[in-house]
């Protein structure tokens, strides 16, 4: 409660103290502009992080519970092998459902490469069986052994081979987004520290006079801290609004667009950008306070 009161007191400010320390134009503009730019970038980093997080979770969940059985056999043996495979699968613990993909479904899978009118019935393409696991999953090694004995043309693909790199890539992208956010915060702190140092140097004579008349260092520091915190809040709020609008204007997610069109916020995640100005204000508060107290100590 005490911290909250102090924060509110700081934001409410002391008009007389604010007048005593004159604003320096270029540091004010630098702080607002850099906070706005960093907040704009932070919105995108946040959107990237959340989107890749969703993607990683979705790919992981979707692919983890499904497998594909591919049966390659001469056309006259295809039906027999498919039935045999289904029989094996239906008696395998951990398999919740197994079904033959229809000609239409196989045509849809091949459409991106061969177009929509491919005559799959007359082509020697393998028959696919979709396997859906139950919550316990099945023993892939045991199933492969049984299939090898009873359906020689069957190849089981449990998606592990390409699921893991995809999920790992998405996780890395999410990590990249988080690292970007951290770098943006550090850069914001560095820029605001530089601006605060410049403002303190420009006001060296003001500080000297205030000390001569009995001002405590914390009083002097507070005048700078409040100013820079409010500037960072204002700049970050502007940058966040612009960044959120830009994300809003990105193309909507659709199947054809793939991953890139899904870059944005969904549901309550739209509230996440609201955190950015608050964090920018906190970063500015801490950075300016440290810079001011250190500089005042050096000047004494």
């Amino acid at each position, binding site marked *: 409660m005490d911290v909250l009161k102090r924060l509110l007191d700081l934001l409410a400010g002391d008009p*007389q*103290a604010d*007048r*005593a320390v*004159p604003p320096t134009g270029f540091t004010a503009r630098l702080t607002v502009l850099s906070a706005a730019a960093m907040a704009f970038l932070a919105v995108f980093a946040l959107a990237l992080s959340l989107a890749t997080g969703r993607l990683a979770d979705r790919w992981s969940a979707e692919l983890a519970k499904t497998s594909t059985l591919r049966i390659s056999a001469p056309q006259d043996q295809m039906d027999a092998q498919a039935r045999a495979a289904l029989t094996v699968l239906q008696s395998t613990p951990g398999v919740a459902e197994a079904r033959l993909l229809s000609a239409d479904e196989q045509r849809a899978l091949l459409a991106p490469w061969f177009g929509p009118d491919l005559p799959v019935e007359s082509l020697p393409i393998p028959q696919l069986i979709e396997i859906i696991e139950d919550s316990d999953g099945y023993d892939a090694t045991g199933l492969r052994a049984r299939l090898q004995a009873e359906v020689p043309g069957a190849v089981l693909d449990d998606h592990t081979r390409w699921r893991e790199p995809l999920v790992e890539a998405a996780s890395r992208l999410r990590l990249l987004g988080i690292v970007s956010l951290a770098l943006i915060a550090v850069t914001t702190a560095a820029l605001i520290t530089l601006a605060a140092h410049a403002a303190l140097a420009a006001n060296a004579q*003001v500080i*000297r*006079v*205030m*000390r*001569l*008349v*009995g*001002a*405590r*260092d*914390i*009083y002097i520091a507070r005048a700078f801290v409040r100013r820079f915190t409010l500037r960072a809040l204002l700049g970050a709020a502007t940058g966040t609004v612009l960044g959120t609008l830009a994300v809003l204007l990105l193309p909507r997610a659709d199947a054809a667009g793939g991953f890139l069109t899904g870059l944005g916020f969904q549901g309550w995640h739209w509230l996440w950008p609201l955190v950015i100005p608050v964090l920018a204000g906190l970063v500015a508060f801490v950075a300016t306070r440290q810079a001011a107290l250190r500089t*005042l*100590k050096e000047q*004494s």
Partner: protein
Amino acid sequence: MIELDNVAYNYGGAELFSGLDLQLAAGSFHFLTGPSGAGKTTLLKLCYGELVATSGQARLFGQDARGLDRDAVAQTRRRIGVVHQDCQFLDHLTLAENIALPLTVSGRTASPADLSDLLGWVGLSKQTEQFPPQLSGGERQRAALARAVIMSPEVILADEPTGNVDWEMSQRLLSLLVELNKMGKTVLIATHDISLIRAAKAQVSARVLRLKDRRLQLAGADL
């Protein structure tokens, strides 16, 4: 109030003065004189904690100045009004705001009536909304005196307060300082203006100290 005991101060490796003793008792009136560069301003800075003695002990209101942290120095300065030769104003604040600055930085607000009385006392009632660069030398010195006394300090230190003003104005400033002394304030004025000292001795019982050849001595009867 303020005591310097066997104090020395070195500046840039060279000794400015040493073996210096000074006691400013409550209600006393002192002049500090001596040639330019003798260290009068430095001695004043030791008295309000702006500088720390190289050796010896400076006690401000009973506290060793060497042991004061920044906050304690700030608190001590609120008990000492300082009139600087160059006034040290903030040019972006009005005269009234500059005079009220010691109150402002201590979290208090000057009552308009008190401020008006103070400005009237130093004869600056009409200049309240002017900015320091718009004021004459005499007006600036009187404003500096008003700022020095607004916190009702126990001690007033004035560094060449009449350095930039004519004779008439210096007499006016002197009479204000004498008036403060009669109100019980301790006053120390650093000046090289002998005529000012002579004029003061006609009005108040003042001790005159001379800082010369790195030592502080009581001045002769000619002063």
